[in-house]
């Protein structure tokens, strides 16, 4: 099209564009003066309303990190998984075991990934020390969280540095095996050592971060764990756990054994300037049907119907944060915003409290099976989970309407392939862009 010079083309476009200005009226100043008064009044009214809105939003923003704190449970889940790793093989990793057995503390990088249904990553650093103490500095959806565990004392604290909020949580009903491994022997690394003693399947040799490393793998029904150690020194180079049922991988790298660690890192004293929010105690007891029903009902209330794709803390943290963000961007009236904020808060607390029990049940009871993905709350025909309580003959099967039936093993429903569903909250929220 361009057959003339750029200058000519620009001149022609200028001639064309300025036609829009022809006959355009000049500003009507008296009108604009009146409009200033009217629009100022509107601005002041809107500002008052926005101020209330801001307070509610600030509250919602506090709920989202609380949900994110559920990612802490991921770490607990990993610890529990390590506990339940089975098998007894020869000690192929003597040097590594010696190194860890003599260590007072370990530092490492953690990268966790949940693949399904939406890829979510958690990354950060972790310091573990004897006596069941652990400090994690993690980032989830750009929100920094510091989590300090003292499993010996059964206490945990989450800090949100951006908002100067501290969440103090008591861990109740910790299983004896877990407590023993953390406290009686004073040994944070008991489970890693146990895996090392078992040895596991040799994976051969490969170079990791410039180090020639030998790999070993152990597995049970719900997870696999790989440990790669320096072929010469026995120093762990990388540890990776994978839980296909949860679509989750946790990789620990840049592992360092340290002689001294600052005890202040594990202090449960609230830092200066932080506001403390006491949270309901988290029970580490494996959930029963009542707790599982509460968990599913609260999650479905938040998402507006469908049951969760998996009983996974990161999935819940993602859903809660997305929901809080959608609320913030919405054009909902104040009253509705308050109502939905209260739903989020209530659901968030219930799910956080009950999720641990569900994870503990799954990890300690191999008969547990969940298949609630895509099922609507209230669906009385579709079984969503089942398990056989220890010491009982029959299975408990829970349906979409949360009623429970006792059935023999031969009468268990078939495991089904899950229907696709959205992970994000489905509740319709009109956004401001509408």
């Amino acid at each position, binding site marked *: 099209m361009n057959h003339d010079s750029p200058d000519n083309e620009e001149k022609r476009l200028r001639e064309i564009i300025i036609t*829009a200005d022809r006959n355009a009226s*000049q500003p009507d100043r008296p009108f604009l003066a009146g409009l200033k008064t009217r*629009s100022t009044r509107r601005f002041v009214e809107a500002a008052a309303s926005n101020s209330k809105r801001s307070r509610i939003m600030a509250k919602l923003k506090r709920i989202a990190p609380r949900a994110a704190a559920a990612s802490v449970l991921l770490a607990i889940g990993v610890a529990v998984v390590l506990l339940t790793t089975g098998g007894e093989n020869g000690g192929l990793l003597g040097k590594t075991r010696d190194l860890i057995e003599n260590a007072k503390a370990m530092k490492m990088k953690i990268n966790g990934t949940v693949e399904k249904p939406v890829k979510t990553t958690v990354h950060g650093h972790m310091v573990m020390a004897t006596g069941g103490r652990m400090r994690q500095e993690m980032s989830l959806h750009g929100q920094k969280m510091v989590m300090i565990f003292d499993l010996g004392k059964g206490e945990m604290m989450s800090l949100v540095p951006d908002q100067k909020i501290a969440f103090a949580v008591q861990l109740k009903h910790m299983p004896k095996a877990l407590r023993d491994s953390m406290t009686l022997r004073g040994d944070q690394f008991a489970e890693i050592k146990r895996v090392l003693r078992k040895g596991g399947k040799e994976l051969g040799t490969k170079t990791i971060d410039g180090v020639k490393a030998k790999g070993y793998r152990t597995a049970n029904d719900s997870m696999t764990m790989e440990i790669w150690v320096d072929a010469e020194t026995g120093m762990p180079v990388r540890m990776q756990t994978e839980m296909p049922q949860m679509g989750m991988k946790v990789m620990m790298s840049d592992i360092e054994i340290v002689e001294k660690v600052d005890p202040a890192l594990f202090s449960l004293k609230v830092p200066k300037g932080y506001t403390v929010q006491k949270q309901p105690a988290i029970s580490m007891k494996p959930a029963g049907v009542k707790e599982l029903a509460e968990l599913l009902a609260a999650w479905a209330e938040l998402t507006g119907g469908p049951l969760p794709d998996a009983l996974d803390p990161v999935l819940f943290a993602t859903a809660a944060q997305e929901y809080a963000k959608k609320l913030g961007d919405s054009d909902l009236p104040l009253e509705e915003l308050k109502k939905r904020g209260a739903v989020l808060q209530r659901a968030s607390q219930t799910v956080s409290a009950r999720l641990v029990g569900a994870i503990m049940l799954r990890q300690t009871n191999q008969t547990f099976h969940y298949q609630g993905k895509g099922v609507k709350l209230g669906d009385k025909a579709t079984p969503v989970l089942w398990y056989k309580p220890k010491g009982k003959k029959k299975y408990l099967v829970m349906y979409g309407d949360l009623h429970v039936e006792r059935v023999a093993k031969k009468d268990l429903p078939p495991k089904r392939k899950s229907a696709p569903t959205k992970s994000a909250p489905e509740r319709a929220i009109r956004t401001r862009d509408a």
Partner: protein
Amino acid sequence: MEGHRWPSRKGPVVDEATDKIAEGLRQGRRDAWSSLYDLYAERAWREAARLLGGDRQETADVVQEVFMAAAESAGRFDATRGTLWNWLAGIVRNKVAVRFRRNATRISAARRWWDRMNDMSGQWLAGRRDAPDGALEAEEMATLVRCTLLEISDEHRILLVGKYIEDLSAAELASRCGSTAGAIRARLLRARQAFRKAFEARADEPEPARSKP
């Protein structure tokens, strides 16, 4: 806010004064609104007037809608997504576009007028002949230009209007947009290309599909 596309911010904030206004709006301060209004009310009027045409009453109605809507959402203004003027100009564009949609007859008439010029219009746009007699003075031409200005991005419209209607230099536009003169020249080139492409598409659009802007 107001459903318009926020232009991406590619430079520093225009100046400290507008930064302060933006902060004041977020805090709900009356004086910030007053400053915003004093700074942009007449400019918003001119923007609306040139996009709408000559109807003074319609311009007043649109300007009123613009500032009432802006007053509602000013507390949520996000400076990371664009300048204050880009935000306000986006609201003007949306309000004018709503009116344009209601006035399909005027756009159809302009399109037919363009068709009647046969090859002359195309040759003129391609630089192979001068403007057909009376083309630049015709109200239909102004209508097609307004339609096109409503169709291109806020950023391109603001640049083209600033350069060719308000007669600002590249340096002045750079200061207004928080950019550099060199970058403005490059963006102006893209804005002209976007305008020409949209204008040709609008003018040559078959009759049944002409439901926008």
